[in-house]
C-alpha cells in the first residue's frame, strides 16, 4: 500500500486539474487506493448530507425531526451513485467505452468531492446568515453542482476515451437508463411482494382449514 499525504491530496488535484488528474487516476495510480479514497469521499458526502439536514441554519433548512432519518440520507447518496455507475457501465460496454466498472465508480466519486468541500462548511456558516445573505448559499451550492457536472463530464470522457459529444450523449443516455433501472426495480419489488403475499395467503388457507 502506498498511503502517503499525497494520496489524500489527490482529490484536490483532480478537482483543479481534471484532465491530468483523471488520466493519472485511470492509468498511473494504484486502483485499490483509489477505491478506498472514493469510498471515503462517498462516506463524507453521506455524512455531509446527514449533518446538513440536521444542523443547517433555519433560514435555509426547515427541519422536521419526525421525518429525518440518517439511514435514508445515506441511501439518498449511495443509491443514485450506484445506479449511475451501473447504468453508465452497462451503456459504455455497448458503446466501446474503455472504462472498467471500478474506474467509473472512482471517477464518479472523485467528481463528488467539490460538493462535499462546499457543502460541509455551509452547514455551520448557514447558522449565521439572514434570508438576504442566503443568496450566497444558493450561489455556492449551484457552483458546487456545476463543478460536479464539469468533473463528471471530464471524468467520463477520460475514463472511456470518448469524444466530448459522445460523452454528452452517453451521459444523457445514462440518465434514461437509470430511469429504466428504477422502473425495473419497482417492478421487481412489487412482483416479489405479490408472490410473498400469495404464499402467505396460501399458508393461511392451509393453516385455517380444519
Amino acid at each position: 500500500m502506498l498511503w502517503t499525504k499525497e494520496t489524500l491530496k489527490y482529490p484536490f488535484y483532480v478537482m483543479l486539474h481534471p484532465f491530468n488528474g483523471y488520466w493519472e487516476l485511470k492509468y498511473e495510480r494504484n486502483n485499490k487506493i483509489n477505491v478506498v479514497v472514493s469510498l471515503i469521499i462517498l462516506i463524507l458526502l453521506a455524512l455531509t448530507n446527514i449533518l446538513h439536514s440536521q444542523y443547517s441554519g433555519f433560514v435555509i433548512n426547515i427541519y422536521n425531526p419526525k421525518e429525518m432519518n440518517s439511514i435514508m440520507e445515506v441511501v439518498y447518496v449511495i443509491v443514485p451513485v450506484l445506479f449511475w455507475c451501473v447504468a453508465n457501465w452497462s451503456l459504455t460496454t455497448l458503446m466501446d467505452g474503455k472504462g472498467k466498472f471500478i474506474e467509473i465508480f472512482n471517477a464518479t466519486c472523485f467528481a463528488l468531492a467539490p460538493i462535499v468541500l462546499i457543502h460541509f462548511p455551509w452547514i455551520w456558516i448557514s447558522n449565521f446568515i439572514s434570508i438576504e445573505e442566503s443568496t450566497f448559499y444558493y450561489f455556492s451550492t449551484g457552483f458546487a453542482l456545476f463543478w460536479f457536472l464539469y468533473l463528471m463530464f471530464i471524468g467520463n470522457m477520460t475514463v472511456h476515451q470518448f469524444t466530448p459529444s459522445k460523452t454528452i450523449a452517453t451521459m444523457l443516455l445514462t440518465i434514461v437508463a437509470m430511469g429504466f433501472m428504477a422502473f425495473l426495480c419497482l417492478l421487481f419489488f412489487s412482483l416479489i411482494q405479490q408472490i410473498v403475499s400469495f404464499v402467505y395467503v396460501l399458508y393461511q388457507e392451509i393453516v385455517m382449514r380444519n
Partner: protein
Amino acid sequence: MMWNWKRSVRSFLCFLIGAVALFSIDTQRAAAEGATDTYNYSFWGTTVKSPAAYTAEKIINGQQFDIGAFADPNDIHVTENQDIYVVDTGNQRIVILNKNLELVHVIDSFMNNGQEDTFNQPEGIFVNELNDIYIADTGNKRIVHLNDNYELEKIVDSPQSEVIKQDFDFKPVRVVVDKAQRIYVMASGVFDGFMEFNADGEFTTFIGANRVQVNPIEYLWKQLATKEQRSQMVQFIPTEFTNLDINEQGFIYATNGDSFGDTIKKLNAQGNDILRREGYFNPRGDENYYVDDGPSRLIDIDVWHSEIYSVLDSKRGRVFTYNGDGHLMYIFGGLGNLRGEFVNPIAIERLGNDFLVLDRALGEITVFEPTVYGTTLNEAVKAYYNGEEEDAYHLYQETINMNANLDFAYTGIGKALLRQGKYKEAMEYFKVSKDQMNYSKAFLLHRKQVLRGYFPYIMTGIVAFVLLWFGWKVFRNVRGGRRINAVD
C-alpha cells in the same frame, strides 16, 4: 425479609397502575362528554388535534315562533345591530329575529304601486347599515329593495347594457350592498363575475370574473377533434361564484366552486384578487382529503372584524376560519345527525361572537358559541391585527397554553418579543412557527447586538494583530539584516 419487601413493592405498583387506569377511564369519559375536539393543520400538513373553538348551543327552526317551520331556507344575514334576517325560501317570506333570537317581524308581502306584491322563491338577502333590505327575489327575476319600515323603495330587474345579451335571464341568487349603495349581485348563469348596479339600480359593469380553468386532457381532445365535433363539445367557461360577502372597507369576499386554484377571493373595486395568502397553505378548506371525495366545495363566506373570514364547505359540512394573513384559525361542524352537525348546510353568519349556520334540508339554524379557547384566539388575532402587540403577546400565550399545536400563534408571540428587544427568544418562537422572514429579521438584530457587544474586543484583536505583525516584520528585518551582515 427481602421477599416481603419485594411483595409490598409489587402490590404498591399494582395499586398505582390500577389508580392510573381508573383515572384515565375517568378522564376519557370526561373527554367523551365534551366530544368537541376538532382538528387543525400543522405546518407539515398533518392533521393535529385542537380544542374546539365553537360548540353548538341552540337550534332554531321557526316552530318556536308559531310561524311554522322554515322550508328550504337559503340565506341568512345579520345586521350591524345584530338583527337576524332569514330567507325562508320555501315559505316565500323573510323572517326577522333579534339578537336574543326572538321573532321581530315576518315579511311576506309589500305594497308595489298600490298593489300587494309577494316574493317567489327568494334566495338571498342583504341589509345595510341604514336597515335597507335588499332581497334577491330569484323566482321573480328581480331585486327588491325595502326600507327599514318594510316599504318598497325600488325594484331592480331586467338589466340593460351593451355587454348583456338581449335574451339574458336575470336570476339573482345572492346580493350585497356597499356603503355607497352600489349593489353587487351574484346571478345564476353568469360567468363574467358579479353584476354591479349603481344606487339607482342601473347596471354598470361586471367585476371579478373567474379565470377559465382548462383540463389538459380535455384540451388535448379538443385539439384532436374536428370543427363539427368541437361544436358539440362542452365549452371552456369560467366557473361561477358560489357566494359573496362584503366587509366594512368595501372589499368583496367571494367563494367559487372550483376544485383547484384559488377558491376564496378578496376583490377590490377593480375586481382584482387581493387576498393575502401568507399562511402555511393557501386558504381552500381541507388540506387532507380522499382523492375520490375531492377538495372542499366552498359555498358561503362570512367576513368579520380584523379581516377574519370563515368559509363553509358543503362537501363535508365544515366551517373554516382564517385570519387576514391566511392562517387557519379553527375548524368546526361536520355532516351528521348530532347537534353541531348538519345535513345540508347552506349559509353561515356571525352574530356578535357567535356563529349561525343555516341548514337548508332541516330548516334549522344552529347557534354556535365560542369556547374559552375560541374567544381567546379571536381576541388574540384582533389584538395582533390592530398592532396591540403587548395584548396579543399575552392572548397568544394563553392560546398556546390551551393548544400548543397552533403554529402561527408563535409568530404573534415572537413579534411582541422582537418589539421588546428580546431577539434571541423571538428567534426561538419564529423557529417554532416556521416563520423564516421574521426569524431572519430577529436574527439580524440579534447578530448586530452580539457583535456590538464584542466590538471592542474584536477591534482590539485586529489592531493588536496588525501591530504584532508589523513588529515581527521589523524585528525580523533588523535581525535578518544583522545576520546578513554577520555572514558578510
